[in-house]
């Protein structure tokens, strides 16, 4: 399977920025993140918020990144977008291969041409992500006028079509409305229309449904899934909501404290969560079909990036902790019976004999 991606991708993907594969080749991932390290400056020193993260996303595939707040999901997305705060954030290592490019090596001007055109992003807060003084139609058309050099008329027509596609009722009548005249769900649809205006090859959705109420969530998720298939684009869906993951993702990467601790096809992950963190995460979802004896919680919280524990970063909160966990860093290794399913844990997925350092 091509999805064995991360470690395999490391072999032929760009070290100097010239990728060997073209984006059109079936099976070649559209995005290959390798050993990404993103650091932030806090209290005078640089500390990694994302450490050695590797994954790949295919065309027409949805990768969900799940984890608690502060585990590095959003930072990973911002690293791909090149939108880290310039003063106190930086990519300290690794590569982000996108189609034929290595995004890490591009300058701001080149990145700007890709953003909003070939890679788009949707944010969490639809209520504040639209400019209150510009009409909805203008904001959707703007992306097309900017990236596609369309004239006003042409862009407006295309924007209207987009608003129809994201199922804004009577889009024509609402074209000249201002954002405050729209509900949260409708605004998120507008955001989606803006992000998809230039038909991006990759869409980053950073908790796009978290701020919406549940019925609207389902509608927006269905819309995203439908548009993803229609456009054949790759999607990275960032969330802390495992219920959402189950309904939209093809593959899941669970992140903890800046590292991917487990990655697997979605069914596999839900059926056989292997890393203790993933397992506990799944167990802490409230279920209607079980007795509510009590909700499982994971004791403790994500360590601060300036005070990362040695060895396995989850060890201090892990109920199965053993001495090896706190002395050496575990590695992400495939499970023997499922190469697609990779886990970073000394106990549940011990590396093959002599295989790794």
């Amino acid at each position: 399977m091509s999805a064995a991606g991360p470690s395999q991708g490391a072999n032929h993907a760009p070290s100097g920025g010239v990728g060997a594969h073209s984006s059109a080749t079936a099976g070649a991932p559209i995005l290959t993140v390798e050993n990404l390290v993103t650091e932030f400056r806090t209290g005078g020193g640089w500390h990694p918020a994302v450490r050695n993260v590797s994954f790949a996303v295919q065309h027409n595939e949805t990768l969900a990144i799940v984890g608690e707040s502060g585990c590095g999901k959003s930072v990973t997305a911002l690293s791909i977008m090149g939108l880290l705060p310039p003063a106190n954030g930086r990519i300290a290592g690794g590569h982000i291969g996108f189609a034929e490019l290595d995004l890490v090596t591009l300058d701001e001007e080149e990145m700007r041409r890709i953003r909003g055109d070939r890679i788009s992003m949707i944010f969490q807060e639809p209520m504040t992500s639209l400019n209150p003084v510009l009409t909805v139609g203008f904001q959707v058309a703007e992306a097309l006028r900017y990236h596609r050099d369309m004239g006003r008329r042409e862009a407006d027509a295309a924007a209207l079509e987009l608003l129809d596609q994201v199922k804004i009722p009577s889009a024509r009548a609402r074209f000249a409305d201002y954002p405050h005249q729209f509900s949260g769900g409708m605004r998120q649809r507008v955001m989606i229309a803006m992000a998809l205006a230039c038909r991006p090859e990759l869409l980053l959705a950073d908790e796009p449904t978290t701020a919406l109420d549940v019925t609207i969530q389902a509608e927006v998720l269905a819309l995203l899934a439908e548009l993803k298939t229609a456009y054949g684009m790759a999607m990275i869906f960032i969330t802390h909501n495992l219920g959402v993951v189950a309904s939209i993702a093809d593959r899941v990467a669970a992140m903890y404290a800046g590292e991917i601790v487990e990655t697997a096809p979605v069914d596999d992950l839900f059926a056989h969560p292997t890393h203790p963190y993933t397992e506990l995460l799944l167990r802490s979802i409230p279920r209607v079909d079980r007795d509510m004896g009590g909700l499982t919680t994971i004791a403790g919280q994500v360590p601060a990036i300036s005070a990362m524990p040695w060895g396995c970063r989850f060890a201090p909160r892990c109920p199965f902790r053993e001495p090896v966990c706190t002395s050496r860093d575990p590695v992400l290794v495939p499970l023997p019976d499922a190469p697609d399913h990779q886990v970073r844990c000394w106990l549940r997925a011990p590396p093959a004999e002599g295989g790794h350092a």
Partner: protein
Amino acid sequence: MNEGTTLTPAAPRASSYVLQQVVRAFSANATSWVGLVTFLFVVALALLAPLISPYDPLEQDILARLQGPSAAHWFGTDSFGRDILSRLLWGARLSLVISTVSILAAMLIGGIIGIVSGYVGGRFDMVVMQAMDVLLSFPSLIMGLMVVAMLGASMGNLMIAIALTAIAPFARIARAPTILVKERDYIEACRALGYSDLRIMTIHILPNIVAEILVMGSLWLATAIRIEASLSFIGLGVRPPTPTWGGMIREGFENILDSASLSIFPSLAILLVVFSLNMLGDGLRDAIDPKLRGGER
């Protein structure tokens, strides 16, 4: 939906929202209407000066000097027998042009400095704002004296002097909301859409803060008229015999014991315009601030 049908021009213009807000703010506050109508009345008089002024403002009639108000000269005549009403009307043109041009220039330059400084932030912002503070520390009369001493007294230099005093306040008034707005999610969304900094500043930030700059502008227009009058009064403005309000007060001052109307009428004219602009600006500000802030979410 039918495809390719004609799209009703939706006029998605940045200004329309601001305009709506301004109109709404106006209707909410009667004093701003009074201010606006009074000011427009003065502007109309100034524009119509060539048509409605009864005499040539420079024409001397030495036999009719220092007269009080009469049917022939409504506001009386000055020491050269020139008609004060005509001089007031023509002087309004000059005073209004000088203050408007200088304030527009200050608005433009100060606005650009403020937005760029607030948007870029960091050390650049600090240096620029400290320079603005230095500029701000000069009283307008001292600034006027300095400019005129360096460049000479003329209409153009008067405008430069007034603009220089007003740049710093406009830079500050533009910077503060820029700093607020640039942290908003929709500006982050603009970056995610790959828009250039210039585009973000002009299309996405400017319409959000332009109302505040305009309100400030109406208040500063009044100040500019006062500065112009003050500088003309101490002889640093437009050269006589060209009529300006400040110059007229000074000329009248020399003969104040013979005919008080010489100074009183131009003073009243200044009072009227400054008062109307302050009413306009104050009303506008009171009405627009809570509305703009509250209406966004």
